[in-house]
């Protein structure tokens, strides 16, 4: 077999298959983790009947979705109604293919980098561009359903997604400033060279990126498009059965890809903690791939934690947060990082140390503040008292 055919066609096919299957399985297992964890966080049990610890619940749910009727409203635009979920799913998976999950993999005598394509020198730009295509999927499925709730949900969702695209782009620029490259692999290598993960000098940028990422994936506290109390199911109200499952997989696929990009840009990708400190080299027994997926998994847990912690934003608050808070912060952060980079390697370390100290001081101030007298009128606190 010719080298070109192998590396350009066959290997991408295999990687694509592995990725889509992995996204499908991960979405299933994540729902189980999410429901169990939410149960624990809300002092209840969560699914625990199907299989050990309820682990087979997601398989049962999948079987249910497969056998469910596929309802397309008679007034809907049939072709666009079908295209919507596909347009949401494909970009979510393609982004995962552009992120390096490890340095290299040799299998059956073929060595290939652990991502879909060659390490593009515009990798990050392509990731941002591809992930934005998902907006079309949402607005098309909302519009094509020809029903009022999906239409409103789709519009809201599109407005939300494009609003948070701006602070996300500005946050990503800080990582490019620090690494001087758009290539995902070179950004990771730059963090090895700098001897510090970019999360320290880029603490604000990481915060902005992750908050925008939660908004981009329509997750709590920004799950406005799916605000069931006002919009029923948002843009996917008129979807059922496996079409709905495609939306579902895309949401989890998007969560994974946001986490993977955050890991690459700010948490050193596949690098172990403190890659330059020699005495920590025993950590290298864990392969690079597991470092990467472990970090991604932690981010996914944070997503679930957010869902248990924060109440949903109101729509005008959501837009105000995006346009009036995150954008000024991201512009200020950009200036800060640009000045630090101008200063050189020491600048990044000083900026990182100052930011970490500020955060630590903030935690300390909150911790030392005397607890407010607990009112027994609010439901949450009265629950706690009943338990105590």
């Amino acid at each position, binding site marked *: 077999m010719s080298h070109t055919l192998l590396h350009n066609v066959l290997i*991408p096919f295999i990687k694509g298959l592995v990725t889509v299957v992995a996204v499908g399985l991960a979405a299933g297992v994540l729902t189980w983790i999410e429901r169990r964890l939410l149960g624990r966080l809300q002092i209840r049990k969560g699914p625990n009947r199907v299989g050990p610890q309820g682990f087979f619940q997601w398989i049962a749910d999948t079987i249910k979705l497969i056998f469910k009727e596929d309802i397309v*409203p008679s007034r809907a635009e049939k072709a666009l109604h079908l295209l919507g979920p596909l347009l949401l799913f494909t970009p979510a998976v393609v982004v995962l293919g552009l992120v390096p999950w490890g340095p290299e993999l040799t299998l059956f005598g073929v060595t290939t980098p652990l991502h879909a394509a060659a390490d593009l020198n515009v990798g990050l730009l392509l990731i941002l561009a591809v992930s934005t295509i998902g907006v079309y999927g949402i607005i098309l499925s909302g519009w094509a359903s020809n029903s009022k709730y999906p239409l409103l949900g789709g519009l809201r969702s599109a407005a939300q997604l494009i609003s948070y695209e701006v602070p996300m782009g500005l946050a990503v620029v800080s990582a490019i400033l620090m690494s001087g490259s758009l290539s995902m692999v070179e950004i990771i290598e730059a963090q090895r060279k700098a001897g510090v993960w970019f999360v320290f000098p880029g603490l604000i940028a990481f915060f902005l990126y992750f908050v925008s990422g939660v908004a981009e994936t329509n997750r709590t506290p920004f799950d406005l498009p799916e605000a069931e109390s006002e919009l029923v199911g948002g843009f996917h109200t008129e979807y059922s059965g496996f079409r709905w499952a495609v939306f579902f997989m895309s949401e989890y696929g998007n969560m994974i890809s946001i986490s993977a990009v955050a890991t690459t840009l700010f948490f050193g990708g596949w690098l172990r903690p403190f890659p330059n400190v020699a005495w920590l080299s025993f950590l290298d027994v864990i392969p690079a791939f597991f470092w990467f997926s472990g970090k991604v998994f932690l981010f996914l847990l944070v997503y679930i934690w957010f869902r248990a912690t924060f109440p949903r934003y109101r729509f005008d608050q959501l837009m105000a947060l995006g346009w009036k808070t995150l*954008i000024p912060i991201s512009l200020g952060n950009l200036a800060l990082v640009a000045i630090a980079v101008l200063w050189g390697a020491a600048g990044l370390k000083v900026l990182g140390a100052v930011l970490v100290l500020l955060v630590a001081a903030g935690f300390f101030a909150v911790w030392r503040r005397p607890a407010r007298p607990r009112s027994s009128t609010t439901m949450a606190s009265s629950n706690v008292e009943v338990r105590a």
Partner: protein
Amino acid sequence: MRVHGGPEAVESYIPILFFAAIAALFPVVMLVVMALFRQQAPNSTKLSPYECGVVSSTDAHDHRFSVRYYLIAVLFVVFDVETVFLFPWAVMYDKLLLFGLIEMAVFLYILVLGYVYVWKRGALSWA
């Protein structure tokens, strides 16, 4: 396998194309395969748009929606183009150095003026 420009640069996108093809085909194939399993029993009530039990009297496409959605879309284009300008600047920053910093400060200053204007005019407030 990192390439800068030339025909190789185009070739490096080919794997992505095939990868994306799989990502696009997977849900289609699954939908077709799953169609073999399920039962279809449609009726006119089931196929009507969902409006919490009320029979829908108008087409959803006949309704107009808030002009603010258009406004947000226009503002997004302005700010996103700005972000796109920042990308090449950030890549070349280690060569531009102080010149780059001042140059981008001027660019962002003009942009922030527009941002403040838009804010004062109330384009950013939803209520």
